[in-house]
């Protein structure tokens, strides 16, 4: 699992390509990419747990809705997340996850740029030989 930042999109946004052997890994990679745009993830300790339950009409929407929920919690609860335990029910297109992180601390987290939203722009989860991949653009 992991992600790679895409450089050549001329925009004010943050584009990345994520990979995962399983859908759970893929979603966790996307969540890590999202929070790595905002802070140095290695400095965000997994001290506080938040449960997230989401269902959607399709897997692409499930991913956008999952990222949107984490972005919402970032502002509403003033928290950065760095660890994600995710269970996905692909038949029912739903997930339950535990996101772990800590309250935003400017002295500790090497804070970067705010993520305003996850977009649907050209977003399509694709099955590849060893798992799944997706391109995501976040609005900064």
């Amino acid at each position, binding site marked *: 699992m992991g992600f790679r*930042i*895409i*450089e*050549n*999109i*001329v*925009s*004010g*946004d*943050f*584009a990345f390509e994520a990979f995962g052997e399983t859908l759970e890994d893929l979603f966790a990679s996307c969540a890590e990419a999202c929070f790595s745009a*905002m*802070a140095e993830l290695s400095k965000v300790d997994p001290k506080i747990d938040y449960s997230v339950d989401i269902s959607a*009409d399709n897997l692409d*929407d499930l991913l*956008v*809705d999952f990222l*949107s929920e984490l*972005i*919402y919690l*970032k*502002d*509403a609860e*003033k928290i*950065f997340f760095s660890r994600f335990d995710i269970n996905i029910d692909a038949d029912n297109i739903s997930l339950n996850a535990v996101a772990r992180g800590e309250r*935003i601390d*400017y002295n500790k987290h*090497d*804070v*970067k*740029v*705010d993520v*305003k*939203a*996850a*977009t*649907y*722009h050209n*977003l399509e989860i694709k099955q590849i030989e060893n798992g799944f991949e997706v391109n995501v*653009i976040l*609005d*900064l």
Partner: protein
Amino acid sequence: MERKKVAENIWEIPLSHKPGMRVPARIVASDNLMNSMDEGVINQITNVACLPGIRGYAWCMPDGHHGYGFPIGGVAAFDTEEGVISPGGIGFDINCGVRMISTNLTEQEVKPKLRELINDIYNSVPAGVGKSGFVKLNRKSFEDIMTSGASWCHKNGYAFESDLDHIEQRGKIPGADPSSVSEKAFKRGLDQMGTLGSGNHYLEIQTVRFDETCDRDIAEKLGVMEAGQIVIMVHCGSRGFGHQIGTDYLQSFGKAMQKYGIKTNDRELACAPINSPEGKAYYGAMACAANTAFANRQVISDSIRKCFSKAFGKPVDRLEMNLIYDVAHNIAKFEKYDIEDKSTRLLVHRKGATRAFGPGNPELSGLFRDIGQPVLVGGSMQTGSYLLMGTKKAEDLTFGSTLHGAGRVMSRTRAKKQIRGSNLQQIMEKEGIIVKAASFAGLAEEAGFAYKNVSEVVKIVDSVGISKKVARLLPLANIKG
């Protein structure tokens, strides 16, 4: 790509470019800018041209660059009977905008106190990810802000009454409906009043410059009297509140499109008929966010005024810290234009584009009815910004719209690879610009070289006649969110 130059600095992409285009697309650009225009902009503006009920042309301004849904710099007007409203034509940061405040101080007077001043403002205007504001709100007061915008600031001691006359639509868009706002949007925005945000948002102390093409008479009428005069510019929007409203409705409009049988070329162009319950609900929520953004910039202005007053030991009125203007550049508004010689009410979407009404427009009042509406163009933090005026020509040609900034040419990631934020800060200090940033990484992403040449894009709108150049504004000190 098929394109034709229909006038100097105006290009047309015809209906034959893409199946489903209902109107041609038009791009305001020099030969140079057109040749280097990102292919994504062409694709996105021609996708906009396919939306139901679009009238005239789908326009893109010369600062246009690749976004999602609409390009940044996109302008499109929709018939109120047959047309649609699209969150992707407004952006997540609803009523992101710019305001400019005058002073009677000179560069010489301010420079010795600049560092102290910018540090004090930095402590008074929270900037960056996850920062809370100093204004404590509850549900009732937040709902008041949603419906009354900048007027709330006047009632609560954050604005002079005269400020309201200098805000687009007096800082209060009608039709705001708090019942269309989700609990999440409410919670996300509740503690962010008076905060700058992050990304390309900034607060800048600037000095005025004129060249021979600037209209000095208009400048004087606006209170911009001489070169070296200090002014302040603020660029920010509706913060997490607006971002959540954009997220909520983009999500729900997927279903609305199925219900109304609307298909778009891009999911980010999700839309609903203007007159449908879904379209009306989004408009009501968008207006709440727009009003909140006007209030946010007003509360920030109040903090800036207090810092200047403290630094110079004078009351605000003696420093003549008057609001020159406040404009939205991510918004949809009902306006009237002549379509086939008939006055028609349209919903004009501007995403990274500024309203640019000229003299005599009935929606303007007082001084602005006589001289037109100021247009504030935020350039990059290194190269400067512009004060322009709207024109009658803009109303005739581009649905009363013009550019909003310089426009990006380089992605954030690439900019960050070219320079470290701390190096950029040193370079800017050598250039005489003090920078205070919530994040060094965020600072590097906003380097001057990541943007088009602001003077070139301003020259284009000036020559096309959709705006008129009044003054150039050079940065002296900048707070970056």
